[in-house]
């Protein structure tokens, strides 16, 4: 039965050589895109992870707050917001930071004449939540709520999501294309299917050639997609290196997945289409 399926499947392919080549390309392009997409997701992964990291928000307290008062306020805040980690920056640490950021204030800071405000750092996974402290009498100012890493992470995560969705849509289109092709071939061969049934062919014998006829362009599509994604990723990698970013490479699992998708996605589409429509080609 397998030999028969291959022999008849190759006849179908020979009869529809041009359409089969188009089908192989039509399947190969979205699979290659999906491969590149997965590679990009893999590459962007560490950057995207940054968006989920905790960040520290600086809160300046009023300089006239006494140390006891300040400690009570910090304790109260920590109880009200259990997901925050609140810590006070010591006055010597703050003086050192100020001298580093504003060297021209060194004399003023060392003279002890200036009343330095107290700095509190809040470590949180939701920096925007710190805005609840705005307007409180004890709070002088709240520092920037997002870091450059977080912004980069959000962009990377968004990019990875877009690439993933586009890859999924393209693969779905490829599967649909294979299903339509099998449906058309089934329609074109409906007389033969009827005759085969009447002379005692089993469903496996009838459907086998169609599966072979779609699996072979699928395999070609898988190979084309591997070559295409290797070339594309190599180009992207060179671009990334030129921009001083780390190099990209396609994981072996993605390459294997591309080959498997090339064969199995159209096969799956063919199996479903044949199960749905092959029974229609019958007499009585």
């Amino acid at each position, binding site marked *: 039965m397998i030999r028969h399926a291959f022999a008849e499947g190759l006849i179908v392919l020979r009869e529809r050589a041009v359409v089969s080549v188009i089908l192989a390309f039509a399947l190969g392009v979205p699979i290659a895109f999906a491969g590149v997409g997965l590679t990009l997701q893999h590459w962007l992964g560490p950057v995207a992870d940054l968006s989920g990291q905790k960040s520290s928000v600086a809160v300046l307290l009023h300089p006239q707050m006494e140390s006891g008062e300040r400690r009570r306020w910090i304790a109260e805040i920590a109880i009200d917001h259990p997901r925050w980690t609140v810590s006070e920056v010591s006055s010597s640490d703050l003086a050192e930071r100020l001298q580093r950021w504003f060297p021209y204030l060194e004399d003023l800071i060392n003279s002890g004449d200036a009343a330095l405000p107290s700095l509190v750092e809040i470590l949180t996974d939701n920096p925007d939540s710190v805005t609840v402290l705005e307007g409180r009498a004890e709070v002088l100012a709240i520092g920037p709520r997002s870091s450059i890493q977080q912004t980069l992470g959000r962009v990377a995560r968004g990019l990875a999501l877009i690439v993933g969705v586009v890859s999924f849509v393209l693969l779905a289109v490829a599967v649909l294309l294979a299903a339509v092709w099998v449906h058309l071939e089934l329609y074109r061969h409906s007389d033969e299917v009827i005759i085969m049934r*009447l002379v005692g*062919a089993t469903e496996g014998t009838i459907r086998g050639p169609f599966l072979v006829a779609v699996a072979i362009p699928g395999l070609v599509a898988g190979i084309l997609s591997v070559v295409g994604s290797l070339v594309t990723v190599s180009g992207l990698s060179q671009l990334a290196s030129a921009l001083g970013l780390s190099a990209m490479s396609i994981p072996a699992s993605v390459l294997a997945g591309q080959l498997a998708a090339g064969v199995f996605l159209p096969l799956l589409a063919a199996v479903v289409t044949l199960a749905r429509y092959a029974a229609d080609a019958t007499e009585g």
Partner: protein
Amino acid sequence: MIRLRSVSKEYERRTILDALDLQVDAGEFVFLTGPSGAGKTTLLRMLYAAEHPTEGEVWVAGRRIDEMVRAQLPLLRRKIGVIFQDFKLLRRKTVLENITFVLRIHGIAPREAHRRSMKVLRRLGLQNRQAAFPDALSGGEQQRVAIARALAYQPRLILADEPTGNLDADLASELLSLLCDINYQGATVLVATHDHAILESIPARTLVLHQGQIHYDGMWPP
């Protein structure tokens, strides 16, 4: 080999077969005749399960086929050689391929399938047309290819629907003697025809179908 019990068939409230009872034993040669529209083709189609009765039971080779599910039909059909009125040849295959194809479906190895196909083609005088496609053949040649295909896998039951319809008198006579040979070797043969000359050429049991019922069952002429 064939048993019908109270078989009726209706199409859009028109009765084609009406409570038909019939028994054909293994090894019999039977003619089925009657005017056009009498139900001959419908009856034959029921015997290879291309048609289901509205009522009644259809038994072929010891199996009740009107209750068979689709997956069981191939095995039944492999026991039956059908010579179709409209030939039902594969247009994209040559004469030889039309026959080897069926043998391959039946699980016969390629070399043996080729040998058997050539043997039956020689028997029907088609050996020189083996590479031709059906559309390049005359009606009579296509009829003979359809016959060759039905005979190639040596079925236990042969159902022939107007098998001489496109053949001249000599070829018709040759075909009948071929069917007689096959019947002599043990196969049951049921031939549907409205050609009286054929009925008179071989002394055989004849069923006359009229308005969906068997009006005569015996040797022809009555």
